[in-house]
């Protein structure tokens, strides 16, 4: 499989502080399923922010879809971002919009005509089991429901990469299992998945998934080979 993402000696520093990420190098294959794990503060969210182009690295090379993402002109960022779906740790749903409108946002941003939006949005709502909450606004949804809306929003544009930051962190084990199945089915459709999680039990549920482990801003397992049992400090 072709590499869809390539990081080479990437470093990230916020302001004049110490490096949050140091010498991070890895590649992601198109269509593969990756878990990114590590303790709190290891730099998982920072790495994901680099991946979905919310941040530029302080040093190193990032190649995304075959192009240099570090020197990518700002005007070209939207085109790249539309190829990446993001499930934020805190969902980041637009609170005054209904579940329907939140899920429809990426299509509207991409300029899809309004008559062509309804069917995919309703299908996506059904896929995440929220057909009966179509008009509900995020504050009236449970954590799990918000998470599913966030996932539906992230995948409706058929992104080439889906990045999810602790997607099961706010849901009960049953919902976590269900969300994982959603990710798995999406991966089977060809989307490359990168899921940051603490939950090593979850990782074991996806056969063929690869794991990358961050430790104090350094990637300890850049080969991405699934490796068990987990280290004691991660359990």
């Amino acid at each position: 499989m072709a590499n869809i993402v390539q990081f080479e000696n990437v470093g990230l520093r916020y302001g004049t502080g110490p490096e949050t990420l140091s010498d991070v190098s890895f590649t992601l294959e198109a269509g593969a399923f990756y878990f990114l794990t590590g303790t709190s503060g290891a730099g998982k969210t920072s790495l994901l922010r680099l991946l979905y182009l919310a941040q530029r690295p302080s040093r190193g090379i990032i190649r995304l879809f075959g192009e240099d993402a570090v020197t990518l002109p700002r005007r070209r960022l939207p085109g790249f971002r539309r190829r990446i779906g993001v499930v934020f740790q805190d969902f980041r749903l637009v609170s005054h919009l209904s579940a329907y409108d939140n899920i429809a946002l990426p299509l509207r941003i991409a300029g899809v005509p309004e008559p062509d939006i309804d069917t995919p949005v309703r299908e996506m709502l059904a896929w995440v089991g929220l057909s009966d909450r179509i008009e509900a606004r995020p504050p009236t949804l449970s954590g799990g429901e918000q998470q599913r809306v966030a996932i539906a929003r992230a995948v409706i544009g058929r992104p080439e990469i889906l990045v999810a930051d602790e997607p099961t962190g706010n849901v009960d084990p049953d919902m976590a299992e269900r969300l994982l199945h959603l990710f798995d089915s999406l991966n089977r459709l060809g989307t490359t998945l990168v899921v940051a999680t603490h939950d090593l039990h979850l990782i074991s549920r996806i056969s063929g998934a690869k794991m990358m482990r961050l430790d104090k801003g350094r990637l300890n397992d850049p080969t991405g080979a699934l490796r068990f049992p987990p280290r004691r400090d991660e359990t």
Partner: protein
Amino acid sequence: MKLGILTRPADRRVLDDDRHTRAMRWIMAVMLLLTVLAAALGLGMRGAAQSLDRQLAGRLTVQIVEADARVRETHAAAALARLRAMGEVASAKAVDRAALAELLRPWLGADGVDPDLPMPALIDVDLADASPAAIRRVDAAITRITPAAHVDRHQRWMSPVSRFMDTLVWLAVGLVVLMAGATAAVVILAARAGLEAHRETIEVLHMMGSTDIQVARLFQRRIALDTLAGGIVGTVVAAAIIALVGWRIAALGSDLLGGVALGAGDWIVLVALPFAFALLALGAARVAVLVALGKRL
């Protein structure tokens, strides 16, 4: 997401209604009220100045100052005949003694009508050609008849008034420009405040691939419509004030102030002001948002 004000209803919902930004409508109402009043002053003064120019530019009074009544009347008749023969003159009419006495009555009282009192002969002239060259030719023709003749241009008497009116017109133009600048500044502040208030939503939009122009459209549409709504309210109130002042001026019956009345074209300019300001707000909001977003990733 589409261009300009004609966005889809779904796009308009992306930014929630913010009560603080709605305050801008009232600010714009006040701005447009003052702007329309200033513009009305300028347009009214311009109209009055033009009316005064039209009335005075082609009018002269020929004055023949001669103590000997017979000589004065002979010169006056010759001057009148000469003036009527000139192509530059549309009409010339001698002011009779009774009219002169009436003019002097406030100063001379009933004695002004004394037939022995020497008074200059006056001829009112309406010019067909009010150019300086034509006036010079008339002056030369009259002084050839008698050096005691003096030609007065009515325009010269009123030039201080005319200059004052011109000053008021320029003052009004300055006020309108100043208000436009202040409106743009308010819009820029409102756009920046809006960006800050909706920072999280905008960040999400960006992460989903929204362009800066798409985000700017959301703000520029809202700000332009707020400006238009407030502007229309301000303009309606200003129009009522202008109509009231116009009615009071008409009641005075003054020829000079009567010229201050607004014409149909002036009203069209005033009605166009809120739309022009809405366009200005749209442009200012767009620039402000694009500049601010350009500093983010």
